[in-house]
């Protein structure tokens, strides 16, 4: 494909970004990553379990020669916590990229945009490449872009909800005006949701639960790959305008029985 996703000067082979959580096993995760063709997966930063079980072998199940690790600040509820977590993630040695999350509320898991903007400004000052996860608010996305975000990541719906793209018009306003890549993050439930996001002009889609929680994660990952590619092609091709009435696609001239039946 000659239409790669480029973020902060780095080129990715796929417009699909996956997570690494909630899979039934590391083996299933690896199979899903492979089937998806993804070039970037997100990982969380957590305290090491000092009581026995070492959870540390996640990375051995990710082909880091082909797949970039995107650390996130999942689970952070303040700008300070998110900045702290980002600094630790950078020191863990993979890159200075961070998927920035500052969550506002445990029940909805919706972002706290005010704290998110503060943390974005701080981390950019410290040399991070920041990809903030935000609500589907065009104004907030613009503010994040002006602050120097390398991409903006508006949600389609709450994390893990699988509700699909809840506000297509907002997403369109965001993609039409953004000068940095727009990655729709969260809310995708099935392949058509990913295609819709891409048809609306998104540059990529990030999902975790929709694949990890599917009956067959690897098969769903492949479906998502096709959906993202189909949606991207449809966006580039340019869809027809919507009409409320029918418009014949066969010629009207030369009909054997001209004229429509009279309406009573």
């Amino acid at each position: 494909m000659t239409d790669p996703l480029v973020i902060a000067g780095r080129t990715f082979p796929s417009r699909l970004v996956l997570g690494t959580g909630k899979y039934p096993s590391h083996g299933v995760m690896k199979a899903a990553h492979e089937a998806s063709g993804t070039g970037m997966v997100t990982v969380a930063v957590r305290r090491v379990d000092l009581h026995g079980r070492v959870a540390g072998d996640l990375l051995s199940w990710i082909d880091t020669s082909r797949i970039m690790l995107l650390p996130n600040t999942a689970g952070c509820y303040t700008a300070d916590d998110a900045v702290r977590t980002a600094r630790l993630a950078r020191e863990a040695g993979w890159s200075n990229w961070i998927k920035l999350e500052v969550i506002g509320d445990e029940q909805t898991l919706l972002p706290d945009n005010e704290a998110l903007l503060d943390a974005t400004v701080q981390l950019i000052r410290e040399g991070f490449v920041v990809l903030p996860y935000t609500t589907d608010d065009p104004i907030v996305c613009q503010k994040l872009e002006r602050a120097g975000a390398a991409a903006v990541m508006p949600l389609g719906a709450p994390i893990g909800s699988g509700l699909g793209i809840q506000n297509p018009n907002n997403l369109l306003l965001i993609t039409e005006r953004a000068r940095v890549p727009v990655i729709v993050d969260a809310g995708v439930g099935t392949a058509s949701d990913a295609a819709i996001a891409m048809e609306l002009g998104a540059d990529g889609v990030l999902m975790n639960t929709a694949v990890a929680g599917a009956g067959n994660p690897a098969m769903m990952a492949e479906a998502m790959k096709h959906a993202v590619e189909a949606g991207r092609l449809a966006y580039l091709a340019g869809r027809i305008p919507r009409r409320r009435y029918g418009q014949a696609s066969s010629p009207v001239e030369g009909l054997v029985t001209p004229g429509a039946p009279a309406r009573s």
Partner: protein
Amino acid sequence: MSAVRILLNGEPRELPHEMSILALLERLGLDPRTVAVELDRVVIRRPRYGETAIADGAEVEIVAFVGGGSTLS
């Protein structure tokens, strides 16, 4: 050398004596290349693990990457 009391990943711990971050990681059986360490809320660069001592009362956080997509409730 006297015992050192620290807060390690939020839990009180007692070390037999003052030691470096590198020594603590070895003691815990952790590979320094797979973790990141914060001492009193400041991230310590990996090359400095050997020379950075953990004093009495220190707060130490040791983290690693785990599976995740977005916030897990």
